[in-house]
């Protein structure tokens, strides 16, 4: 009887879905442990890391940029009437920038990445598992965790924060455009208003949490694909659960980050 079966047997009085959740979290933790173990073990697959960074980063620029631009534009247009009602229209650039940089930008970008990247990792690694390519790699003496997982997780950990910064910048450009639809404000004044309100203490936690977003998106996508079930259904399920779990992880990390930030500041 393996560890999972023993666990199931011991806690059979709990609802099955609860036991499944504990097992899933346990297995993910173990997988994360393997990631850290292999992270510092040569060979370092630098070329594969660069390729994955390109796939995660450069290939997402269009989608993230468009989403960010629309986000900034819409937020500004929707906030404006309320601020006018309170006679606080001048606060519009500052308010929008704080919302975007501290919360909306990181979370929306991370959710897009969860949908685009975690599902891709789940599907690619899942199909490699189903067609025994991961087994073939293992048997040939190449460490699949090192080659497939470490490179991908490092790529998302590095690229998601950069994508968030990019999305923030584009969203502020969208906001600037929205402000100028109804009013007339120079770019210099807009930037001054933005950075007058935005402090380093807003910026730093937002960037730090995106590193965790990126890590979790990568590790969950890889975990789901690496342990995909058999057949096409297994691959589909891996891609699907990768998105759902990664999105949920983004919200959980965000919740924790907000609490920690409040404690620190």
């Amino acid at each position: 009887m393996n560890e999972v079966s023993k666990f199931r047997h011991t806690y059979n009085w709990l609802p099955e879905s609860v036991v499944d959740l504990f097992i899933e979290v346990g297995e993910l933790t173990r997988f994360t442990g393997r990631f850290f173990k292999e992270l510092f073990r040569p060979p370092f697959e630098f070329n594969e890391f660069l390729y994955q960074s390109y796939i995660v980063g450069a290939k997402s620029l269009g989608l993230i940029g468009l989403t960010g631009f629309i986000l900034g534009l819409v937020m500004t247009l929707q906030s404006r009437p309320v601020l006018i009602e309170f006679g606080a229209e001048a606060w519009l650039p500052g308010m929008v920038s704080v919302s975007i940089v501290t919360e909306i930008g990181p979370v929306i970008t991370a959710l897009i990445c969860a949908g685009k990247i975690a599902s891709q990792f789940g599907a690619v690694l899942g199909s490699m598992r189903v067609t025994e390519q991961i087994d073939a790699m293992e048997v040939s003496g190449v460490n699949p965790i090192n080659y497939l997982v470490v490179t991908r997780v490092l790529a998302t950990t590095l690229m998601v924060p950069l994508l968030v910064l990019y999305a923030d910048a584009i969203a502020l450009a969208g906001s600037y455009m929205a402000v100028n639809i109804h009013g007339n404000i120079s770019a210099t004044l807009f930037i001054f208003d933005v950075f007058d309100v935005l402090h380093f203490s807003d910026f730093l936690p937002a960037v730090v949490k995106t590193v965790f977003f990126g890590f979790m998106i990568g590790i969950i996508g890889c975990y789901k694909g690496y342990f995909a079930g058999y057949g096409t259904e297994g691959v589909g399920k891996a891609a699907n659960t990768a998105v759902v779990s990664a999105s949920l992880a983004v919200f959980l990390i965000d919740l924790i980050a907000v609490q920690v930030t409040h404690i620190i500041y």
Partner: protein
Amino acid sequence: MDYVIEIENLKKTFEDKEILKGINLHLPREENLAVCGKSGIGKTVLIKCMVGLMQPDSGKINVLGKDMMNPSLKDLEFIRRKIGFVFQGSALYDSMSVRENLSFTLKRSTFSGSKTAIAERVEEVLESVGLVDAIDKMPAELSGGMKKRVGLARTLIKSPEIILYDEPTTGLDPATSMEINEMILDVRKSNKVTSVIITHDMNCVRMTSDRMLIIHDGLIYTEGTFEQLKSSDDPWISSFFNKKEE
């Protein structure tokens, strides 16, 4: 006798189903052993246990002097340098060309050659399986037989001492099956390897094996040469042969 694989009382269970109930097997160096049995009986599980892709529940597996029940990382790396595995579906890396499929392993192995030496070795091995023209093709562009041959080439590139073949001729036409069988014999002759061949194909058994065994109900039901088992009076063994030869 010099055994390269020694298995004693090997057991493996999935969920609540006991697949292997106590397998005993001793494989001398340079012997070709065919393992037969009905689908789902645990033949692939057996060879996956030999190479550490699956962990048995109990028993003893010794491969090239290394204990595979709880192998250290060092032992596992040693074994995987010495054992080749030809997968049923070939398991070629579908995002890489044939050349990359072969050089991928070599670049990350103990092979201490330059880029030119790796390229030469790749061409040499592909030539031995008659596929040097397909060197820049992607796996999706290859036929089933070509994929099997590339899979074999990928195994041969690291000069293994043992090769485990999982259904090497399944899904191939008789002519291509014949080519693969001849290739298995050539590999043994030229590389002096020991082989375990999982198959349902009795022609493959007849052509390639020195000894065959049949697994039934998680145990080795019988073993002997192809001719010995073919002439057996046991109705189950006979029906197995007749059925497979049809």
